[in-house]
């Protein structure tokens, strides 16, 4: 075992997959300049050369479309979006092209692109650098979507994403970049579509997406002795391991979903929909979603904090549901 930062885990996965498969290449803004803005691509250009590590002009639409076309031609591109928000200028190649080609071609072509998109909030970067836009892509047939919250999964899910034959949106969180945890030596993969029970409990199921896993574990800690909280990290949102969530709810009878994205029309609402559809009788109380306020994220620190979920706000919701 060894200690590994989340950002180092991403970097390690890229190194390993590029060494394993010559068809894997990395493309995006600054990926060849000192390892990129957040150092995710550190050492790649020195090791694999400029042919396979392609720094681009600021042209998200072009390099995303290029990646889709290169994948149609048999390569395995890994696209970096410096900030998730920037997908706004590349929605056509993402949504109308990449996600549709396998279906439109009757399965004739596969588009094995991994799109790395860096999200996160609480860093005072305001409305155009703080969004969790996963619901846009979860609503688009043709994408798989993963959101690692640990170093272990940051590496394991990225390797699985690169090896998958579908477009995979890999959403990484900059607030977690410098978190360190103990991981095994060597290589591993985290399969797509398998949730993790991050903490076992008896009274309530908290499904925590991305960064919210940390909030949920803090809330569970704070409630220890009062409420026994089970925390489930789906890790993969599409495909979703609903079975693990239903098994947990069958034990606890209570459900709350927490994520940084707005609660309205978010993936939490979708998880609640599916649990209600398949496990209504398992619930002893109304299932709830905790998300951010439905506002363009404000800059001022007290305003931003007030708009986002926190361990304290989640704790209060859990107390309300359990009535303790």
């Amino acid at each position, binding site marked *: 075992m060894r200690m590994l930062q989340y950002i180092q885990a991403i970097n390690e996965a890229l190194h390993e997959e590029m060494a394993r498969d010559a068809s894997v290449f990395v493309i995006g803004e600054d990926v060849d300049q000192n390892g990129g803005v957040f150092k995710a691509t550190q050492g790649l250009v020195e090791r694999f050369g400029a042919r396979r590590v392609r720094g681009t002009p600021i042209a998200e639409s072009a390099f995303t479309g290029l990646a889709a076309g290169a994948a*149609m031609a048999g390569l395995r591109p890994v696209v970096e979006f410096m900030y998730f928000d920037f997908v706004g200028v590349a929605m*056509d190649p993402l949504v109308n092209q990449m996600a549709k*080609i396998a279906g439109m071609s009757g399965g*004739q072509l596969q588009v094995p692109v991994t799109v790395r998109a860096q999200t996160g909030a609480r860093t005072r970067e305001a409305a155009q650098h703080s969004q969790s836009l996963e619901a846009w892509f979860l609503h688009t*047939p043709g994408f798989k979507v993963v959101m690692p919250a640990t170093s272990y999964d940051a590496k394991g899910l990225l390797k699985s994403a690169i090896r998958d034959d579908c477009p995979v949106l890999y959403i990484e969180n900059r607030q977690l970049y410098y978190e360190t945890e103990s991981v095994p030596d060597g290589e591993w993969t985290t399969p797509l579509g398998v949730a993790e029970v991050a903490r076992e409990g008896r009274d309530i199921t908290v499904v925590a997406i991305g960064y919210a896993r940390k909030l949920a574990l803090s809330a569970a800690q704070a409630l220890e002795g009062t409420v026994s909280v089970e925390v489930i990290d789906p890790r993969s949102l599409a495909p979703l391991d609903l079975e693990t969530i239903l098994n947990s709810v069958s034990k606890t009878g209570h459900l709350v979903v927490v994520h940084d994205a707005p609660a309205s029309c978010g993936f939490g609402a979708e998880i609640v929909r599916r649990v209600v559809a398949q496990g209504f009788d398992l619930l002893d109380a109304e299932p709830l979603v905790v998300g951010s306020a439905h506002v363009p994220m404000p800059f001022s620190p007290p305003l931003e904090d007030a708009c986002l979920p926190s361990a304290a706000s989640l704790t209060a919701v859990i107390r309300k549901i359990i009535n303790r």
Partner: protein
Amino acid sequence: MEPDLVIQMYRSMLTIRLFEEKVKQLYQAGEIAGAIHLSIGQEAVAVGVCSALRLDDAVFSTHRGHGHLIAKGGHLPEMVAELMGRQTGCSRGCGGSMHMFESRVGFMGGNGIVGGGLTLALGAAFAAQYRGRDGIAVAFFGDGAAQQGTFHEALNLAALWKLPYLAVCENNQYAATTPFVAAVPTADIAPRAAGYGIPGIVVDGNDCLAVYRAATAAVERARAGDGPTLLECKTYRVEPHCGIIADKRPKEELERWGRPDRDPLEHLRRGGGLSDAVISAAWHDVEAQLETAVTFARGSPYPDPAAFLREHANI
């Protein structure tokens, strides 16, 4: 010019013309549903460019793409079957008119988004360069797409990385129903190439041999590693934008473009010195091929919805 190549070009253009006329009939008879964009009048662009390509070169097409696929070597029975939504269609009934794919002949798909193919084609060009092969990628697009941001982004990146890329603007004078002059402040698109430091060439898009010569030079340049070319082919969309949209165009414009010497097929017949016997044999063969294709499509089953959902609905 090789006589066999001229005959082949004529037959290919004739196949497009008669295919489109057949599609129009089948559409009006209700045998084909959806949105159909015909390329009658633009045959010389598709055939002139694709005649300069190899089978393994990649073509990315548009919403008006039947002609591109035929010119690249597409199979008529599977094309008609696709338009009729059958299991045997080239996209297994999942694509329709705007999303035909036939990757075995290097046809990487039509595209329902104007300007969408410009960036996808970058990827196929990139893949050829990445693997050290001399294949190239062609993006067909209209004068309408030249006003999209992807036009600029794609040409800039293709020029920057010297990708083996050919951007073919089919300037058919209309973006849906908006005339060229209402959308573009200059007479031509091609001079924009200077802004990317690449050749920009205007060619008579109804002269198949002229298109072929210009495309051949651009293809050679791309294969040699010297980068992309922007080729603007001046042509005219004879049919309305789409089967269902009414079309009001000036009578004198229609007459000007409708003169026999402006017709791509007639132009090649005269310029290529093709004999009546050759022309008549071509008509006979192509009509027979189309009959076979329509019979094949009519006799093909529709796809099975349950099997489709099993394969594609994976949530």
